[in-house]
């Protein structure tokens, strides 16, 4: 695996065969392509977490921690959204990304925003074959409200090449977050097989009078 540098990123985005192409659309400004990463802009769709009366979050429960219907907000370019200290919302990149099967990537916060207390992405890995707008987990870890303006560069994409290509591309699987066009809420509840297995194994260890 090696990191794609500026020239390689430009070449990957210009690949004539669309299946081999690194797609970042719209790339509004070529200066977004840096020495070893591509700056990504904040998109216009957000999901704000609704404060509920449930005492706990059970991501595998019937009501996931965040659902797509939770206070969906749309903020056009030129307007803004305020993220208060400690607040957590889901956003997405403005750009739609598609990685060919031979490339992987990581999405990272831009350091300038990090210094203001804004955490942009906690789930950094982008799988080969992924297509969609990247969901950003936005948290204000600072002590003052932060004004978020769609269109500003908030994240960066580092792209890594491999010598081969995967046969089990994200694009071919029945993946949870396939080709999203905006922020996606968690899909942990889809992993019920895994949970059932853990419960089954757990029951072998638990005594009838156990906790």
């Amino acid at each position, binding site marked *: 695996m090696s990191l794609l540098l500026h020239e390689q990123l430009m070449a990957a985005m210009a690949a004539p065969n669309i299946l081999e192409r690194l797609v970042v659309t*719209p790339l509004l400004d070529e200066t977004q392509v840096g020495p070893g990463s591509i700056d990504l802009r904040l998109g216009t769709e957000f999901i704000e977490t609704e404060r509920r009366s449930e005492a706990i979050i059970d991501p595998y429960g019937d009501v996931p921690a965040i659902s797509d219907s939770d206070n969906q907000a*749309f903020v056009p*370019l*030129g307007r803004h959204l305020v993220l208060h200290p400690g607040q957590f919302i889901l956003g997405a990149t403005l750009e739609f990304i598609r990685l060919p099967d031979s490339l992987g990537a990581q999405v990272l916060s831009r350091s300038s925003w990090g210094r203001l207390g804004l955490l942009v992405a906690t789930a950094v890995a982008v799988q080969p074959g992924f297509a969609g707008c990247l969901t950003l987990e936005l948290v204000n870890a600072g002590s003052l409200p932060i004004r978020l303006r769609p269109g500003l560069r908030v994240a960066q994409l580092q792209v890594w090449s491999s010598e081969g290509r995967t046969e089990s591309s994200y694009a071919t699987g029945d993946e949870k977050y396939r080709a999203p066009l905006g922020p996606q809420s968690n899909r942990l509840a889809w992993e019920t097989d895994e949970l059932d297995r853990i419960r089954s194994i757990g029951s072998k260890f638990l005594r009838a009078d156990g906790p």
Partner: protein
Amino acid sequence: MDASLGFLGRLVEERAQRILTRLEAKRGRGSTFAAAFSTVCEDLIAQGQAAQSGASPTGKDFEVAVREMLRTLQQLDILYSVVAHFEADVGRRDLPVGLLYLVDELVKDLLPQSADPLIHLDDRHMYSTLPILETLPGLLKPDTVTGIHPVAFNLPGLDPNNAMLAPILAHEVGHTSWRQGIASELDQETDQAAVKGALDIAVSKGVDASELTKMYASWGQELMCDVLAATLTGPSFLFASGVFLPGPGHAVLGTHPYPQDRVALTLRILERFDWIECIERQAPKTLQWFVDLAGRPELSGHPAETALRDSMSLIEPALLKVAENLCTKRLTASAFVERETELADFHRLQIPPAVLSGEASSPWLIICSTWMNEIVRFGDDPVALPRIAVDDRANRFSLKAVELAAIASCWGEDEPASA
């Protein structure tokens, strides 16, 4: 001043003030609506105060002044009902940005005098447009509102984010274009003597002249809207119309031209702009269904029917000319064919075709390509049209592409996207 006039003045002032309070701090898209209605309220508050202070509001005698205050109170009810209906729509944030940009494009492409669009989710599940200030004829002075006027874009409440049916919205925007000057342009282009001749034949056979004139105006307006939508959006209008069309059968003489005749006209427009070969390549069976449907209404032979159909044929060249003059940004078949392969790749890989070969796509190219590619995916069959129209993925995909294309286009022009 009589106490009863002072009392009425106080009522007017208080009620106008209550409405004014509801309009405060309304910013963003559609705020010209709040501004215009606030101005009306301020005028009414001043009138109410004048009635209380002893000065006659209009200088007329007491009886006239009381009657005027009572009328103002009634108008306040109308004012309130309009404000209550639309106030939540100003600067709303619950609609995809792509939908806002799509409406902006319709305003730019079809309205000669522009508009400040106020998007309203209609509880009757209908598309329509409404120049809101026309609801206040007695309250607006000529200089109350300068600049662009608010126009309500009513979208189906249960399915507002529908991009595939945007051509139907284009037809509805045509009705506002009609009020903004297209009607008089059509009049100028029409051979009035020939039309009168056609209508006179029906009148000579006992058809009520006044009713016939009204129907002629209504049919002409509907066809103008069809021609505008078909000229601007191309085959998408044909496909979207197919969702609402009845099958072959008896035509009913009413306010609208026969659906079969409307399809025939749409096909003639598509042929005029070289679209037919392109549709035939992608959707031959669907096209054939429209061809079979077109021009085959089961006619009643009523003299009014003959006169109206004849007069519509007579005004057709004028309809086409007016539409071509207005729709300078119409989607062309050559622009579509040039990008056809690239568009198919983008659709296959589910990449929004916002920017193609470095150029921002028009919303009509995006929607047309989605219709064409979804017909391939769902099957070339007219029964697929309603399924495509309500397909969530197709609509979200198109709206996202429209959003990204609009941003890329504005960025290229070095102008901020509208908020």
